[in-house]
């Protein structure tokens, strides 16, 4: 079933319940609560997915509207029904256990929004009503994000807090506050009823649309680079999987050496494309393998003509440079050394773990001017961690 069909079913379900409530008891608040419940259920299926950050559903915003609309027990009931409905209709995760865990996580996040709003609102009675409402809404909008973050940390068994993609959190928090304020107004002014949340869904949907496109193009771009990196392999010029193995190794070594995320991204791209130059140079007629420096030069020239790939081109060019003592002071050269060592290691070990130790020894035995010992040390640590080296 397509996503828009599932969204429509959830929204229509909320609408049908609202209609039933209104017909059986005209003027009942349950009609509005049913509509909000429908929005929460549908909002579960629309997630903001900024790069490098776990997805966050826009239902968190409607939960803040719900929190302001009604008391804790009614809100809990609406939440339960809405999340159960979305649990039945969501496409992912497929595994039942993970689906139930996600349901519990989202229920905890929604309840946190409701409880925090009422707690804060009651605690801030000494302030002006405008400030009181805004602070309570702010706290309520942040609460589900904190719950989701704690759930992620538990799931991934980590204490690291998400640092990237936090702009999505900001968009969600401000939109949630706008929705709740426009729904009920402040001091009897500016109340739009449920039209408010509808209207202030627009910027949130605009953010969702942008993130979806960004996510798609990031994936396409990454796949394009990886596909091109595989071209020399498909042409039988290098061993299968060489580019991917070297990329994984360089990233691990760069992480070990304290490189930044952006440096690691350039290094990974360079590793994936470091044999691209080979496809552009003439094959030696005597059957010898092509010159490594010529391959690096040709590959670097291709990449340098594109702004985003130019740093990767510099790294590939630096791969062919002889080792110098001040390599650590020049990031491009240092990255080039990492790439050179990772690539040489993969060629020597033929991509096999059981030959890793011998390959590392061979690199250490090479003339001192060829490979940077500091970088070789990083390789050794990475291999040791992967269990490639036998314990001493």
């Amino acid at each position, binding site marked *: 079933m397509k996503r828009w069909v599932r969204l429509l079913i959830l929204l229509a379900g909320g609408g049908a319940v609202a209609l039933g409530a209104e017909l059986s008891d005209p003027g009942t608040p349950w009609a509005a609560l049913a509509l909000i419940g429908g929005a929460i259920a549908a909002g579960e299926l629309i997630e903001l997915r*900024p790069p490098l950050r776990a997805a966050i559903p826009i239902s968190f915003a409607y939960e803040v509207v719900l929190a302001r609309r009604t008391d804790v027990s009614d809100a809990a009931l609406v939440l339960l029904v809405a999340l159960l409905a979305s649990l039945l209709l969501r496409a992912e995760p497929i595994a039942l256990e993970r689906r139930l865990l996600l349901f519990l996580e989202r229920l905890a996040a929604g309840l946190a929004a409701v409880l925090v709003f009422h707690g804060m609102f009651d605690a801030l009675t000494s302030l002006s009503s*405008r400030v009181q409402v*805004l602070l309570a809404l702010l706290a309520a909008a942040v609460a589900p994000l904190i719950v989701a973050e704690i759930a992620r940390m538990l799931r991934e068994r980590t204490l690291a807090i998400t640092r990237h993609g936090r*702009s*999505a959190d*900001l*968009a969600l928090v*401000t*939109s949630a*506050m*706008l929705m709740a*304020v*426009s729904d009920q107004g*402040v001091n009897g*002014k*500016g*109340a*739009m*009823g449920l*039209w*408010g949340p*509808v*209207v202030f869904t*627009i*910027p*949130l949907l*605009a*953010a969702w*649309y*942008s993130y979806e*496109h*960004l996510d798609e*193009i*990031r*994936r*396409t*771009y990454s*796949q*394009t680079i*990886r*596909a*091109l990196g*595989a*071209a*020399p392999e*498909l*042409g039988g*010029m290098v061993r299968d999987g060489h580019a991917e193995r070297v990329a994984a190794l360089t990233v691990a070594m760069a992480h070990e050496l304290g490189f930044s995320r952006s440096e690691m991204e350039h290094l990974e791209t360079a590793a994936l494309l470091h044999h691209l130059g080979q*496809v*552009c*140079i*003439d*094959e030696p007629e005597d059957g010898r393998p092509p010159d490594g420096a010529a391959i690096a030069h040709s590959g670097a020239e*291709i*990449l340098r*003509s*594109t*702004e*985003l*790939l130019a740093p990767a081109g510099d790294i590939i060019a630096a791969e062919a440079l002889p080792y110098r003592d001040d390599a650590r002071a020049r990031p491009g050269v240092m990255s080039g050394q990492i790439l050179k060592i990772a690539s040489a290691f993969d060629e020597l070990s033929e991509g096999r773990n059981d030959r890793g130790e011998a390959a590392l020894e061979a690199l250490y035995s090479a003339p001192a001017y060829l490979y940077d010992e500091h970088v070789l040390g990083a390789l050794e640590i990475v291999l040791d961690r992967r269990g490639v080296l036998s314990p001493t």
Partner: protein
Amino acid sequence: MSANVLNAMVALVVFRASSFYLGVVVVGLCGGLEFAQIRRREWQKVAFNSSLDCITCIVAALVFWGIAGNSGTPVAVLIGAAALAGVADLLVNSSVLSLPISITSGQSYRSTVFQVTKFHVSAYPYVFLGLGVGLTYLGLGLFIIPMIIVPVVIARQAFASYLELKAAQENTIETLIRALEAKDKYTAGHAQRVATFSAYIAEEFAFGPSRSERLRYAALMHDIGKLVVPNQLLNKPGRLTEAEFGRVRLHETVSVELLRRIDFLAPVAGDTTTEAATAAVDGSVLVEPAIIHVADAFDAMTSTRSYRKALSQETAFEELRKGSGTQFNSACVDALIGAILRRGEAYGAGHEVDDHEWAVAPPEAGTGSAGLGHLVPEEQGAKP
């Protein structure tokens, strides 16, 4: 336009109680100011845009205030009034703005209005957002400003990042195509022309923008597998040995394999020589591989290659028609021929853009890698 519509609607709501036209005029005048135009001292454009925004704001105010009145109006009526005011704003804006565009571009006024309206209509939801911001401002005051700016700016930033990465993706593909064409000087511009011919066919089939875009990328990258073919073979004048021909043909498999590794292009990375030829255009089978196959063959026939000179357009059309329904998808053949004739364009012998210099001049006709092996008898095509 989105920011201007939003600002205008906020002004209409905020100044509604007093019908303060001067406020609306000021908002309209300021809405037309563009920093880039002021910096370039393009005062005529600044004056035109400001005046236009001012007029559209007044028209929208007349509609909105006329329907909504000054106070005590239900929100549903306000939304209806805003919707109509937005339509009025859009129509006035498009019809006036189209005048100078139509005059300077030489396009008909009617089609210009249609295009400008189509471009501006994406900003229409901002009418309702402006209404919401205006009403919320009445209750919340200036607190609303950061609260509305944050999500809008974040959405714009994310979209800007998307556009930036999209441009990078295009650049990457262009760079690789340049690298590919540097390997084989006879195929200069081939990928771009195949993309253009594919676009002609897609237009005939009324493809939507995203499907057309996917087709364009696939057409640009259809020969990307040639990266793995040695330069010497691609540029070898005359006939290839069987082993060499096998190595050249490897590029077709590699191209398909590379496209399949990209999710976006995988559905159109089909076999271009068998089922594609009979693929239906009704959507039951993706017709894109067949489109690219026909476009590729047409460009190959009408371009000079190392193994033969360009054929005439008439000969190429004849060959396409001959293979229609068997080697080539008949609907794609008809669509391409129709589109080229309707445009009055001419390709092939006598119409090639690039001059060629040969160490060994290629024959007038011959075998090749674009499915043209059957084109001429071997004894004619095998002259070294």
